[in-house]
């Protein structure tokens, strides 16, 4: 049964005028593995050199123009390593001096299609960064004192291998930890840790996205969406996908494509992000009130019958809801709809407007736009409200309610599951998961966390006496990025807590300063990784490569290791980890060595080339055949083109039919079409056929989450509106209390990795945004200094008065405010202030000695730096706010503003870590600890990176 409004055509667009039939056709095209050439033709002009000429490309140099100097290039594709999107890049390697002249986009890349954001082409700046670390460094003196000596890779490898071997031999495996900020790769590190038998994978997820993840995961078993933006008719974003997003460039391309074709963009955000600025509807809701708007739209769709009844009937776990919550009701779909309307009856537009501060008219209009879009509704929430607020994960839960209700799941223009589109090839010789459970990563207090409670590490260590022997941080800067950074400083300086800290990083960072070894690792053009992201309804794999090595190999040279072609002694993680693993277990007695033996040469150490040779020959369906057609080996194919599309036009994966033989002993529940086999749900009936359904326990879309009830959160079992910790009605205006929004990204920067000249020239400061009305009340003007007090301290910064922010809220960009403790090293000098830190009984103060100053280097540009103030590291003053369910650090802070006094200077920071520890304890009390059913530490169906073996899930008293 098709829902009534679709039959009668109420609100349906005249789709032919939007050019959709064409798109519908294309979505039906058979999926052909291979590569799609996005080199655009424009008359005789092209966007990129044709791929067949990449090995021998000639072009005139701009620098000597109009004199025609010919350059002979070898064009080598790689992947960007700045944000998480993994866009395609193409390096122009000058064959005369074997240097990279420029870095552009890869037109064959299916996600980025030859286009890039500002952060893509600046990879060239990262290669030539005058502040790069070119050799392995070892600490001299005490940790954090800033004295370093150059050491050889051999020395590093032997020392680390010895330490790790000892930990493993002494069954102290949980004392080995690898903490990654930006992975930028799929599988290599999981595989390595699994081979060591170590549950030591830590990440940045819980300062980033855990709330967005669990909110969706509970619905459909995928921890992120993959919307088909291009074909959408309405795009509902609680995020800023046109400035940053997850994934910025590929998403922005497709969102604007849709908007130019007539789609409406709706953005809920208290701040006028560039995305909100481009939106057809900007709904500046008070922080944490987003669910009230979303649920009012749900109510509207229900009350007006503008939802896909057939889809809901087939795919919602309504029977489970009724039997659990309303056992007295007869279990029928009609009763479910009645109950559903009851559940959300209070969410009128009026109520939503009162809660959110957005006008009734606007909410109503948006609801109508969404209703009209039907199954062509793309939604996304990433960071933003989900990340900012206590119970923010319910923002995601409520958001995904809407496309689920309108049947916009897996449709053309609808919202898809990331798990349908992200492709991880199989790696050679995988190891089983670790046997142990690491409680520093997954403490019993947070059984549902998505994922590691990474930002609580110093608090947990202090609280529970954990110790780490060997701690790797990789492209991870928790001292600067995480809340309560001085707790990290305290922990890292404590040699009893952290035996050895190894920073794997391409550049200086505040965290690397407190390391024992700094090991320089390559940027996007200096390393191997395979990476895939869910950028659109297709599966692709991209290949990051050391482009100078590849260019030399193409010219017939033999290169032993990537280190040989990288600047200085910069290396890549993969070769480093192979070598390290080999040295941990040289004789194979620990059972590790075998995982690092070549699949092609018995008993020999695998090379990075062999690793990817095996992967591309065996782990990527369709690639061997496509390569053969071109007379290339699969590895040669990937070296040449850099990407491969495994499958295109992937829609409605949940509708895939179950194999006949799976059904032999299965039972189909008449009531709701659930297919069970041996007490386990294996699929769901839809349109008269047995389907694989979703990756949830019920294989349905779980409107009602039994898991939440099982794990002591019955009040959170269905999508609901629960107040945030920075609820606007709790702010006392007369005391100048504000909700600080500190967690927004900028289109031109990416955390602390992008401290390069061209980007910092555009963006180098993070003044505090404040609305005109609030500024007038407080007598503040743009450029005035202001003191921002948090629960544990304060910081002093400048104001920027704006109409682009909701009154009552202040906002400050996340990226700026880098600092260093030494005039010459410690953080990129173009991007950091020189500071001094003083500590007295847990009270830390930081003062800026000077901002950015021009300096001499090989690059004349460093003497032309004209910006001075570099922002303030606000995160240092934030206490940790772990959401008791998702484990997310809830970024928003309740702050008190005051005009700075004459003794307070720009960049002053003060923090009391005793207060911050007490704050941690207070939030810890909100948690509802494991065990859950059957003595489990965590629901078995929940995702968990580096998943341990099943026994480890049992919480033994």
């Amino acid at each position, binding site marked *: 049964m098709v829902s009534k409004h679709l039959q009668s055509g109420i609100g349906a667009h005249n789709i032919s005028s939007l050019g959709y039939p064409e798109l519908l056709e294309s979505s039906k095209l058979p999926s052909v593995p291979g590569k799609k050439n996005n080199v655009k033709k424009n008359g005789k002009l092209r966007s990129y050199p044709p791929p067949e000429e990449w090995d021998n490309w000639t072009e005139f140099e701009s620098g000597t123009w109009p004199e025609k100097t010919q350059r002979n290039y070898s064009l080598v594709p790689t992947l960007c390593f700045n944000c998480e999107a993994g866009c395609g890049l193409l390096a122009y390697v000058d064959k005369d001096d074997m240097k990279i002249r420029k870095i552009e986009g890869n037109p064959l890349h299916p996600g980025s299609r030859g286009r890039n954001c500002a952060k*893509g082409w600046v990879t060239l700046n990262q290669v030539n960064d005058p502040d790069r670390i070119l050799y392995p460094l070892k600490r001299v003196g005490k940790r954090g004192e800033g004295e370093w000596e150059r050491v050889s890779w051999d020395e590093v490898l032997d020392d680390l291998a010895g330490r790790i071997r000892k930990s493993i031999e002494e069954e102290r495996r949980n004392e080995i930890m690898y903490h990654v900020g930006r992975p930028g790769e799929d599988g290599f590190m999981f595989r390595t840790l699994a081979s060591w038998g170590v549950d030591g994978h830590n990440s940045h997820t819980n300062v980033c996205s855990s709330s967005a993840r669990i909110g969706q995961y509970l619905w459909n078993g995928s921890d992120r969406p993959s919307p088909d933006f291009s074909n959408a008719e309405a795009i509902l974003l609680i995020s800023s996908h046109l400035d940053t997003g997850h994934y910025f460039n590929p998403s922005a391309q497709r969102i604007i494509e849709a908007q130019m074709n007539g789609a409406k963009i709706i953005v809920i955000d208290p701040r006028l992000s560039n995305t909100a600025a481009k939106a057809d509807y900007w709904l500046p809701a008070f922080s944490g009130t987003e669910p009230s708007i979303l649920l009012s739209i749900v109510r509207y769709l229900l009350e007006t019958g503008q939802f896909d009844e057939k889809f809901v009937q087939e795919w919602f776990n309504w029977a489970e809801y009724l039997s659990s919550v309303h056992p007295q009701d007869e279990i029928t779909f009609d009763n479910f709809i009645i109950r559903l309307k009851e559940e959300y009856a209070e969410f009128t537009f009026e109520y939503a407007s009162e809660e959110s501060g*957005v006008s009734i008219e606007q909410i109503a209009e948006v609801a109508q736009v969404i209703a009209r879009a039907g199954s062509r509704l793309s939604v996304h929430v990433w960071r933003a409200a989900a990340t900012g607020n206590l119970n923010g994960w319910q923002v995601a839960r409520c958001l995904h309610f809407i496309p689920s209700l309108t049947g916009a799941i897996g449709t053309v223009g609808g919202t898809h599951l990331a798990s349908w589109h992200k492709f991880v090839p199989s790696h050679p010789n995988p190891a089983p998961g670790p046997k142990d459970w690491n409680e520093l990563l997954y403490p019993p207090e947070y059984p549902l966390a998505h994922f590691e409670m990474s930002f609580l590490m110093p608090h947990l260590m202090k609280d529970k006496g954990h110790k780490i022997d060997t701690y790797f941080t990789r492209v991870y800067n928790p001292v600067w990025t995480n809340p309560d950074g001085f707790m990290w400083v305290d922990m890292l300086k404590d040699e009893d807590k952290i035996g050895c800290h190894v920073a794997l990083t391409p550049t200086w960072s505040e965290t690397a300063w407190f390391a024992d070894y700094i090991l320089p690792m390559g940027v996007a053009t200096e390393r191997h990784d395979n990476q895939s992201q869910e950028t659109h309804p297709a599966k692709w794999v991209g290949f990051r490569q050391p482009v100078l090595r590849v260019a030399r190999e193409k010219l017939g040279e033999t290169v032993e290791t990537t280190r040989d072609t990288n600047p200085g002694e910069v290396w890549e993680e993969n070769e480093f980890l192979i070598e390290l693993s080999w040295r941990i277990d040289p004789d194979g007695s620990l059972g590790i060595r075998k995982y690092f033996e070549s699949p092609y040469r018995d008993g020999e150490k695998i090379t990075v080339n062999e690793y990817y040779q095996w992967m591309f020959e065996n782990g990527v369906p369709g690639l061997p055949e496509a390569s053969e057609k071109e007379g290339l080996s699969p590895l040669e194919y990937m070296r040449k083109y850099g990407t491969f599309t495994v499958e295109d036009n992937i829609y409605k994966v949940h509708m895939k039919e179950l194999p006949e033989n799976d059904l032999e002993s299965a039972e189909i529940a008449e009531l709701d079409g659930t297919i069970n086999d041996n007490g386990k749900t294996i699929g769901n009936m839809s349109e008269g056929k047995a389907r694989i359904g979703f990756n949830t326990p019920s294989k349905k879309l779980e409107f009602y989450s039994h898991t939440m009830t099982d794990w002591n959160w019955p009040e959170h079992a269905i999508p609901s509106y629960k107040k945030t910790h920075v609820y606007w009605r709790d702010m006392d205006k007369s005391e100048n209390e504000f909700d600080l929004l500190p967690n927004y990204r900028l289109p031109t920067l990416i955390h602390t990795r992008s401290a390069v000249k061209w980007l910092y020239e555009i963006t180098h400061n993070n003044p505090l945004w404040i609305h005109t009305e609030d500024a007038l009340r407080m007598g503040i003007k743009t450029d005035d200094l202001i003191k921002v007090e948090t629960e544990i301290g304060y910081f002093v910064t400048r104001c920027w008065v704006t*109409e682009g922010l909701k009154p009552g809220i202040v906002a400050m960009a996340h990226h700026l405010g880098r600092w260093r403790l030494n005039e010459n090293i410690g953080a990129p000098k173009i991007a950091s202030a020189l500071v001094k830190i003083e500590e007295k009984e847990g009270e830390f103060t930081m003062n800026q000695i000077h901002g950015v100053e021009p300096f001499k280097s090989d690059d004349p540009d460093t003497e032309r730096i004209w910006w001075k103030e570099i922002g303030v590291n606000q995160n240092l003053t934030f206490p940790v706010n772990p959401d008791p369910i998702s484990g997310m650090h809830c970024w928003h802070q309740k702050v008190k503003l005051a005009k700075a006094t004459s003794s307070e200077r720009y960049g002053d920071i003060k923090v009391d870590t005793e207060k911050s520890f007490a704050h941690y304890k207070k939030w810890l009390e909100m948690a509802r600890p494991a065990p859950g059913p059957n003595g489990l530490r965590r629901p078995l169906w929940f995702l968990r990176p580096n998943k341990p073996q099943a026994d480890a899930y049992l919480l033994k008293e």
Partner: protein
Amino acid sequence: MNKYAMAIDLRACIGCHACTIACKSEHDIPIGTWRCWVKEVEKGTFPNTRREFLPVLCNQCDDAPCQNICPTKALFRRDDGIVDLDPEWCIGCKSCIAACPYDQIFIDPNTSTAEKCNFCANRLEADLEPACVVVCPTECRVFGDLEDPDAKINKLLTHEPHNVRKPEYNTSPNIYYVNGSQQLLDPTKPMQSGIYKQGEMNDELKQSVPEFKNDPQESRTVYDTFHNIPWDKNIISYLMTKGASTGLLMLSLFLWWLDYKSSLFSIWMPVLSGILLTVTGYVLITDLKKPERFYYILLRSNWNSWMTWGTWFITLKGIFILLWLLGAMTSNDGFLNSILWPTILVSFLSSIYTGFFFAQASARDLWKGSENTIDIGVLSILKGAAILAFFVIIFPITNKENVLNILGNTITVCTLIHFSILMFSILLHRYGSVAHERSIELILNGPFKKEFWNGAIIAGCGVPMFIFWSIGYNYFTLLLASSLIMLGSYYWDKIWVQAGQKIPLS
């Protein structure tokens, strides 16, 4: 033949700045300079606030002011319409920067020559689109050949209303904007705050913007780049020394012609004029970013450029001074009589060409009034008379009283004309340009207020006239008036050069 142009569909621009970076990468553009960038403007009040983005780059104007003013033809037009630049012939005179109404030219600190967008001509030769076009995530830049009816750019321009930056400058730009609001395209519309939303202004820009009023009704620039002004102290000195040199020579020769045959007029003042001319030349050459190339102007003269004409006038003037001195020292009166009027003429031309030259620097509306040319001529005589009065007083000559009378009358007449021109120019002359109004506002009520009223008007005109009127001409009043006139004309030259360039162009 091709005719390249670009249409930028602002509906699709998301303000990501990728184009800025792509351009920096392709052309290795140094820090502090830009061939292209993206300006951001906010307008409206909460919750109806909007932020708009404007990618800007060289307009490749059909009638390019930069090309007209370039004295050495380093700027040239290619057959495909692109205005390109050959840095080998650039002397770094910065006239093109002063001429471009769009702020799209800068001096490359690596080469000390001018730099501008050329649609990536080096890429076009390899059939590749410009870097900023290729990189754009949302394909908001449509580049193409206007001569090709099937080109996407022609389709876009046929179907969508579009406009250009500053059409009133009649340069026929070749960058078209779809959906560009006035606040975005017209740099005089939005206000500037002291800092941008994610960055600071450079110090110079910060000082030049008017005080920011938190007036949410007005549109606000929330991101922009800065541009160093091309003309400053050296150009002020040039106006002073060249004016004085001209005035001195003209008046001395005129007095000689009136039969005041003192060596002061026939030799010493022409010598001083020559020295001042040499200083002028020195100042001009050192103001070049490539001073060693100054003679390129004479080798590759662009006769459309007033800078070229000026250089020739100044050179000729130098030659005539030398000839004059030769004749004077050999007491060859017949020869002197034959070159007297040509020398005065060349000298006069070397003065007033500056008015045409500044008017050709078409970026700046303050310099466009034709009264300025007259004023420059009058001012040079005034400066000359003031200096001459000083020497006549201390130099033993016959008929001193008569000469001082002539000089006093000259000063009086010229001051009155100068004053009238200033009053007309500042208070009355309006030609519907917001930029011009803004410059005037800066002079009357802004940072130049004191220098204008106290310096140029009261000290430079009012007091000298008052003492002449109340006391008459004597040694004391002439010396005092002359000193004040030099001071006043210095202030006016300074204001005229600086206030003209204070208005944002982009």
